[in-house]
């Protein structure tokens, strides 16, 4: 049985999850990436979307304009979350967002923001943009279109959006960081073994 989160997400909904869990999302999902974060955190602009209990997706989609204010999500995979590390802790504090979806891991500041304000970061498999687009039922509206297609805030209603792999939970666990530590621990011995075999300069 897969776990499903539904917006608005409660603190209890967040606290039941642990890094490594797989979960799906029902409800509202807003794309927000580099410039959206920068505008809120650095320029102090108000986000034109209420994210309390909400979910954001680090993504710059391909959207088809069907005319008359109607849009279709064509392709919308996650982008590299680490680019938002600089802003995410403040972003969580300012917006009350509960679920941050992206690709790859995030760092200690986000871990701290998630722990303090009860939020999680989850990974949607990168490059799987058509699967994701098909889980978007409708684009309800778009804000900050002046930023261009990838950076605008696309507000979507999604159904069983996932798989989302919890990478940072509200208890301070960071799945990708633990994995990276494991990879780095393996590295030295492998590099040494290869180095022994490539001493071509004599």
């Amino acid at each position, binding site marked *: 049985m897969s776990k499903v989160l539904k917006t608005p997400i409660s603190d209890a909904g967040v606290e039941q999850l642990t890094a490594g869990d797989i979960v799906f999302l029902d409800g509202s999902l807003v794309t927000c990436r580099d410039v959206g974060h920068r505008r809120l955190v650095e320029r102090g602009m108000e986000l034109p979307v209420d994210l309390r209990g909400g979910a954001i997706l680090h993504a710059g989609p391909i959207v088809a304009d069907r005319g008359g204010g109607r849009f279709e999500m064509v392709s919308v995979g996650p*982008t590299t*979350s680490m680019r938002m590390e600089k802003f995410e802790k403040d972003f969580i504090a300012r917006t009350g967002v509960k679920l941050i979806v992206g690709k*790859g891991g995030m760092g200690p500041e986000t871990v701290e923001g998630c722990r303090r304000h009860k939020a999680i970061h989850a990974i949607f498999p990168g490059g799987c943009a*058509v*699967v994701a687009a098909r889980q978007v039922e409708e684009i309800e509206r778009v804000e900050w279109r002046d930023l261009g297609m990838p950076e605008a805030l696309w507000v979507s209603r999604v159904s069983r959006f996932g798989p989302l792999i919890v990478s940072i939970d509200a208890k301070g666990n960071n799945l990708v960081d633990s*994995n*990276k530590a494991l990879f780095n621990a393996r590295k030295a011995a492998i590099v040494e073994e290869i*180095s022994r075999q490539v*001493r071509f300069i004599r």
Partner: protein
Amino acid sequence: MATDREAQEMTGTMARFTALLAKRLPDDVLTQLGRLRKVEDGPLPRIVYDTMFKNLELAAELDRPCCQDTGALQFFVRAGARFPLLGRLRSILTEAVREATRTAPLRHNAVETFEERNTGTNTGTNLPWIDWEIVSDDATAEIDVYMAGGGCTLPGSAKVLMPGEGYEGVVQFVFDVVTSYGVNACPPLLVGVGISTSVETAALLSKRAIQRRIGTHHPNPKAAELERLLEDGLNALGLGPQGLSGKASVMGVHVESTARHPSVIGVGVSTGCWAHRRGTIRFDGSLRHQVLTHHGVTL
């Protein structure tokens, strides 16, 4: 002398090929992903591979770009000096990108530097980027088309080592790049390594290296051995799909090299994500084309 009509036809062909690349992975990449999928048995790697393959099926079925990040287009041209459209190739490829942006559709990924304005066409100052090699005196041309997302472009790195650091330094550099940034670049990765004199030549070679078909090897036996050692070693790190840990890390490691200045070892690393969207097309002197990387394609 080629006619305007022939230039238009080539533009259309390149636009259709570019759009196709966004939606369908080349044969060698699909084969290798299928192989790596079988190796993984953990629950997270398996759900990720299932999602990846379902995504490719849906992209084909719905005729949509398989990844939303369709890159800032790069072309690697290997032409004969008498290729009939050589002098018009820049305008042909630029127009092909504009057309593919509308028809595929591709994401708008061209931001004018300093103006910080998205052109909305995927074209702009020196974009698409074209790498030129005049390889012969004949009338044919072979063109690699490459679209890489920001995620797998980010790890790209080059530096110049001192000879004392040797090939051991090259190995260390490759591993540092992959463990620091590779995790976020959508593994399993195709890793390109350039070994040359300076940063720009090493970096360019590393990018050309990932245009090579998976399973091909550097002609020098020592370099081919280095490719194998790096591939096995990186796989032993166990990045798994999406860096979620697993049995493998890479689809392959390709090394390209030049002779170099004795005082330095320039090394460059480029990574391609699992959705490695590159393709090669060949035009003969009569401008008939042949797609070399995707079987059964009619453009």
